């Protein structure tokens, strides 16, 4: 019975999270097009539904019914496997993200955390592990297409993902040091209080006003954001699919649902990195002010809302960057990753460690 309830609750949570994520992915495409067009004096989709609001549905239907082509000379197995390898790791990471206050409810005698699917003690590592698997989808898809553009796109993507994954990993270490935990829930809980306790400001870990400066994770935050943009192959780091050079990179030969998988994976990854960013740096579901403004039994709404706002702010940042910045050259990208981001992240770790070791505890 316990087992059943536990499993049932897990299934419900997974379904809700997946539903929300998928819906977000769908309307994120529309939102992106709209935001881009607003920033560029255009209109964006206007034909399907009022102000083009049903465009994602039209796109979905189109992609669903589109002819599924496997190029001659392609490796059929890997060609089919690649989109799945791309999509699954993108979705799997949502399992450890806390969407709301860390509460527990009793259901038929079972303790359930309603706002997180599972709180595992190495949550952040878990996400990193699976995100790194996502590179296989890209690289194998590019290779299996038997197309030089695809292969180049795949190789670029893999190199880029590996390089920037390193930076992501190093950027969050500062946060981990401050939190002393790998669990997403713990990290979020440690930032409770007010905006000052958020890791980006870094005052929540004791010590007072005089030495808050060295433990602020602002540098790590910037490194993380930039690396996250690169990790998700978004502009200005969308070299793997650089239309002007590589047609569509590793996706060149894909069409129909396989293409849609890649597409969804990209947007899901965007959401995921936004979630991580808000949990790690912006206090997750915590409001910037202390306490809550709602009655205690409804305060979870406030938490979820704040979390949502933060995530959407990040997503908007993605669009904003895309609308503003041109694409980097590949060597610039690599140099930036290894020669700027990496030292910054390392420096952040060193300083944070020293400060934490000597001044805290």
């Amino acid at each position: 019975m316990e087992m059943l309830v536990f499993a049932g609750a897990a299934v419900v949570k997974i379904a809700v999270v997946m539903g929300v994520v998928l819906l977000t992915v769908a309307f994120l495409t529309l939102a992106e097009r709209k935001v881009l067009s607003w920033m560029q004096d255009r209109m964006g989709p206007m034909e399907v539904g009022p102000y083009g609001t049903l465009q994602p549905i039209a796109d979905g239907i189109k992609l669903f019914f589109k002819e599924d082509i496997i190029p001659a000379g392609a490796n059929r197995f890997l060609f089919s496997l690649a989109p799945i390898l791309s999509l699954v790791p993108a979705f799997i990471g949502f399992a450890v993200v806390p969407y709301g206050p860390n509460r527990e409810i009793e259901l038929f005698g079972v303790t359930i955390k309603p706002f997180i699917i599972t709180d595992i003690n190495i949550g952040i590592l878990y996400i990193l592990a699976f995100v790194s698997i996502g590179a296989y989808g890209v690289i194998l898809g590019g290779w299996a297409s038997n197309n030089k553009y695809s292969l180049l796109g795949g190789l670029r993507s893999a190199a880029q993902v590996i390089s920037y994954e390193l930076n992501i990993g190093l950027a969050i270490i500062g946060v981990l040091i401050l939190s002393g935990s790998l669990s997403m829930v713990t990290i979020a809980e440690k930032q409770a209080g007010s905006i000052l306790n958020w890791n980006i400001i870094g005052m929540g870990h004791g010590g007072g006003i005089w030495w808050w400066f060295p433990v602020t994770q602002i540098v790590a935050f910037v490194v993380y954001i930039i690396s996250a943009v690169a990790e998700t192959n978004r502009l200005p780091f969308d070299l793997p699919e650089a239309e002007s050079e590589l047609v569509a990179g590793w996706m060149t030969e894909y069409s129909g649902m396989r293409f849609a998988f890649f597409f969804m994976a990209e947007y899901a990854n965007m959401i995921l990195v936004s979630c991580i960013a808000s949990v790690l740096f912006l206090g997750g579901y915590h409001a910037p002010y202390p306490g809550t403004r709602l009655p205690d039994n409804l305060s979870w709404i406030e938490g979820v809302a704040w979390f949502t706002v933060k995530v959407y702010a990040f997503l908007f940042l993605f669009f904003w960057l895309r609308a503003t910045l041109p694409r980097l050259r590949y060597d610039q990208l690599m140099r930036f990753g290894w020669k700027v981001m990496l030292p910054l992240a390392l420096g952040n770790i060193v300083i944070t460690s020293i400060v934490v070791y000597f001044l805290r505890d």
Partner: protein
Amino acid sequence: MAVAQWVKTLTFYEILVGMKATITVLIQRIILRNRKAITLQYPHEKRELPGTYRGMIALLRYDDGTDKCVGCDLCESACPSRVITVISSEVEGEPMKRYAKEYYMDMTRCLFCGLCVQACPVDALAMTTEYEWAKYNKRDLRLNKEQLLALGDRNFPVREKKLEFQHPNVAYFNIGHKNLPPKES
């Protein structure tokens, strides 16, 4: 100076300036609503075309309904993308009078450069302002003489007088010999 440069680099100053520009546009569009999209919702709204717009090419007629085209092939040779095929011939019953027996324009290849219109010695070609010519079958875009004349009739209701009535001194330019005065002796 160098310090300022460093600060700018470290704070991504240029990028922030760019981001300010884009967000400003967004704010003006969505919040202040004092900026309009330049997009034209094409099938619902249409652009006012300038008079010199180069759309579909048409063949013209004289006011008595006869083709202006003399089948001289100059448009064919002027055309940079080999759109035009002229098959010229003699007018039945009027010796030495030349006309285009068949005239084809393969609009799939046309650049709308207008060189044919310039090349035409009798102004038989003109560019209309028609542009909505999407077809399901691209072979439908190989227009024959009748279609091109119909285009001309549709777009140019006012027709010119015949050449010999316009310029008496070139009176024997391609009008055959039927209506010429007899030879002075």
